[in-house]
């Protein structure tokens, strides 16, 4: 009997006990009517071949293990970045249950959002009643200062008109006439979660700047010296936004973070559940119109928002998730250019320290081959950082990055001797990447928790730097941006490198050499 009260075996060990091993084997032999072990092995080997890769890359319709999610997820992310704002997703209720679970598994935090719970009758008659009742209920329970509406694909397919529905809700008195309700159509069959972030963020700005859906006069822009910062969809937002604030403060830059969920997803355990915490206030949103310029840290997360802001007369600087030394240099110099304030001594010191760390460790990273996947902007920033470390980002793959994005990645390759043998893969998924990892192996993989299946299948160590990270705890609490963030990313890579090296040399009697105490 494997289990005992003294030493309780978890699933990890329990099912490897002889009783269970026999049980599983018998089930397989007697009842599963599966393929022979030889056949399974043969096909397994075949999936690693070049021939399989060609068939795999010839796919036109099937997506397997994608590295993207749908628009409303990004919309909920953006909505949570505003003060006392309740995300309200109009459509089927299961979607909202999914977004909430997905965020909670990553952030290990509550995620509050409501649905208008549309069902068959709403599919036929439209979801007006659901939205009207839903607003009334959500408002009376939670008294949010703002309800930010987005849509699931159901509401989009049947063509519900949010603008008129929300007006209807006001007229019927389900919410106070003056309650702020920005809204965005976020069809899941267009773009990805970063598109949803963009649409939702733009809807908030449009709502406040352009007269609250024709309820009040549009705001007049009175330019000032402040800078707006838009971070984009970012799994490390809890660590990154405070880091950005710190950098701005260090340079004395007056700034507004447009969309800041870093407190909402970082609440303390002190006996009180905070449904809302922190976030960009309405006053900040309104004042942001007057800013001198806006820095968009992730272009693909705020393409439309950025264009809209530029149309108001602000200078908008689009960055692509700058990381590491060169990336952070670029970010800070842009801020310095826009504000006329020099990069602070404090940040200079941090730059030197990051460089110091890279110098100490460069021998271990030089020439190492990487595969990486994730959102388009992250990949641009990470690729540049890897090249700067002397690494080779051999496979750079995105499911939601398109051809234009690929051109930008290629330009990074072309500008570095380490990019010579590297290739970019737009609109591909992790099953494509699996083939690549077999036919053109690399030393390390950078991705999210879904990458652990690749780590296992292809034997390539995974470094988790992409949303969602659901099987490691608390990494998201630390920044990956700025020089300080660069240091953390560097250490993540080095840790994985040294772990892998120890694992590969830890075979007593075989590789007692190379198992070095000092490195």
């Amino acid at each position: 009997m494997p289990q005992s009260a003294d030493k309780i075996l978890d699933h990890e060990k329990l099912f490897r006990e002889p009783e269970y091993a026999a049980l599983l084997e018998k089930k397989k032999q007697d009842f599963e009517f599966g393929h022979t072990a030889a056949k399974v092995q043969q096909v397994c080997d075949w999936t690693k071949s070049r021939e399989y890769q060609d068939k795999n890359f010839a796919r036109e319709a099937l997506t397997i293990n994608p590295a993207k999610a749908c628009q409303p997820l990004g919309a909920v992310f953006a909505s949570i970045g505003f003060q006392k704002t309740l995300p309200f997703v109009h459509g089927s209720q299961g979607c909202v249950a999914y977004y909430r679970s997905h965020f909670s598994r990553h952030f290990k935090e509550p995620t509050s959002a409501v649905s208008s719970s549309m069902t068959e009758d709403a599919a036929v008659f439209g979801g007006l009643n659901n939205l009207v009742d839903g607003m009334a209920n959500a408002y009376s329970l939670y008294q949010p200062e703002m309800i930010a509406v987005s849509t699931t694909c159901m509401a989009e397919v049947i063509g519900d008109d949010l603008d008129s529905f929300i007006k209807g809700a006001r007229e019927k008195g389900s919410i106070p006439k003056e309650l702020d309700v920005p809204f965005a159509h976020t069809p899941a069959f267009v773009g990805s979660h970063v598109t949803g972030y963009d649409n939702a963020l733009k809807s908030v700005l449009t709502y406040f700047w352009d007269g609250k859906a024709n309820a009040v006069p549009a705001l007049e822009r009175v330019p000032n010296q402040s800078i707006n910062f838009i971070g984009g969809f970012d799994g490390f937002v809890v660590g990154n936004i405070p880091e950005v604030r710190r950098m701005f403060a260090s340079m004395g830059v007056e700034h507004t973070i447009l969309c800041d969920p870093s407190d909402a997803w970082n609440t303390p355990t002190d006996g009180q559940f905070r449904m809302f915490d922190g976030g960009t206030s309405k006053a900040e949103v309104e004042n942001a119109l007057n800013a001198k310029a806006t820095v968009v840290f992730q272009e693909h997360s705020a393409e439309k928002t950025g264009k809209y802001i530029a149309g108001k007369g602000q200078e908008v600087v689009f960055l692509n998730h700058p990381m590491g030394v060169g990336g952070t240099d670029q970010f800070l110099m842009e801020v310095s250019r826009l504000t006329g304030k020099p990069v602070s001594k404090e940040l200079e010191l941090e730059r030197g320290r990051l460089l110091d760390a890279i110098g100490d460790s460069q021998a271990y990273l030089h020439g190492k081959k990487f595969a990486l996947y994730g959102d388009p902007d992250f990949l641009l920033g990470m690729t540049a950082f890897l090249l700067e470390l002397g690494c080779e980002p051999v496979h750079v793959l995105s499911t939601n990055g398109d051809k234009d994005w690929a051109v930008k990645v290629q330009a990074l390759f072309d500008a570095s001797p380490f990019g010579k043998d590297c290739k970019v893969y737009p609109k591909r998924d992790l099953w494509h990447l699996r083939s690549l990892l077999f036919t053109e192996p690399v030393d390390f993989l950078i991705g999210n928790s879904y990458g652990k299946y690749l780590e296992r299948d292809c034997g390539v160590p995974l470094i988790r730097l992409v949303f969602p990270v659901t099987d490691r705890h608390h990494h998201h609490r630390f920044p990956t941006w700025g020089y300080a963030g660069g240091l953390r990313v560097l250490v993540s890579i080095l840790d994985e490198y040294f772990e892998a090296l120890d694992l590969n040399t830890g075979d007593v009697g075989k590789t007692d050499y190379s198992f070095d105490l000092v490195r």
Partner: protein
Amino acid sequence: MSLTVEEAKKRNQEVIGEVLLAYPEKTAKKRVKHLSVFDEGKTDCGVKSNIKSIPGVMTIRGCAYAGSKGVVWGPIKDMVHISHGPVGCGQYSWGSRRNYYAGRTGVDSFGTMQFTSDFQEKDIVFGGDKKLEKVMDEIQTLFPLNKGISVQSECPIGLIGDDIEAVSKKKTKQFDGHTIVPVRCEGFRGVSQSLGHHIANDAIREWVFDKADGKHPQFEGTPYDVAIIGDYNIGGDAWSSRILLEEMGLRVIAQWSGDGTLAEMENTPKAKLNLLHCYRSMNYISRHMEEKFGIPWVEYNFFGPSRIEASLREIASHFDDSIKQGAERVIAKYRALTDAVIAKYRPRLEGKSVMLFVGGLRPRHVIGAYEDLGMEVIGTGYEFGHGDDYQRTTHDIKDGTLIYDDVTGFEFEKFVEKLRPDMVGSGVKEKYVFQKMGVPFRQMHSWDYSGPYHGYDGFAIFARDMDMAINSPVWGLLKAPWKS
């Protein structure tokens, strides 16, 4: 502070009254029907159920797709399940339910993979049937060892008028009778996951059973053949159940659907008795097998030694003396283990109170396991239960238990605030809310990444986990020492 039953009832009624005040009148009138205090002797829990969730109240429920793909079909390991529609549904439900299986993923098993037709605008406008055909072709090319394909419909499919049945039939023919199952589990159907279970059950009947004749001639039946129905092998639950059934002399010919295969499903009509764990999600197919194939079914409960013992005897009562003796043998064999587990943990957990809110069978089935540890369930409710679930629940709950059907985020928070249980068992969306409040919590869908909890081996883990949650030193540190 321990209340008498009458005091608890009064307090619970007051709490219900308080939460209802927060709603608009129209909503309060609806919600009042879902909240109740159990009166012993009644044949149900006094709540309405399986009714549409109210918009805007942060229901914990999911959708029909979650019920079909996430629960019933997804765990069938040797089939490829297509999340048909936009990318999100498949992405969020990818690998998160912990349906353990043994197999070579990506080669002969596909459980922890996400296959999607990733609908784009043109697919909505022009229809997705052509794309679906191509998706199936590509599956056949890249995964030649798959035993079948299921099409798990997402919301748009039913709205744009796609004919996934026609595509499935056409492709079955083209692939020499390959099993292809279209499932109409669009998320907007019904009021929760529950209709998805039903639709998924119906799809098995229509697209698996009706086509299974003569498929496995090598299968030889015995008088002791049973099938485990409604165990999703979360953290290995079905395995720690199966071991007991086999030890008592039964032959488990199929697992539905955790670690399940298409062949096991196809052979289930050859069972002598169906053993039904999750009544809610798989009673439909059990009733069908009873009507069509004359297979009786029996509900059982493998949480905690008291219920396991009763269930083993109940199951054995359907067989001859050798099995009855087998059941006694198994009970005797594990008694030392359960006694030791209880001796170790009961003193640490005695008198502790629990509030539950889960799906399927758990709001009632786990109560016995808590009671075996000396704990008391003071509130419970179903995410997507029906009237028959609440009737069954009356056998498990105590007089005065607070009952909440399809509880809203607001209600659950207030109930826990007022009743201050020693722990809460619910899902990941609820976990961090209550932990912030300083209330120990275990996820009772995913076993909080632990498990198995079924069977005797699972009970040891269950007891250890409850102890860990409640007696963790972290809850003693909530108040900073400088705060008076």
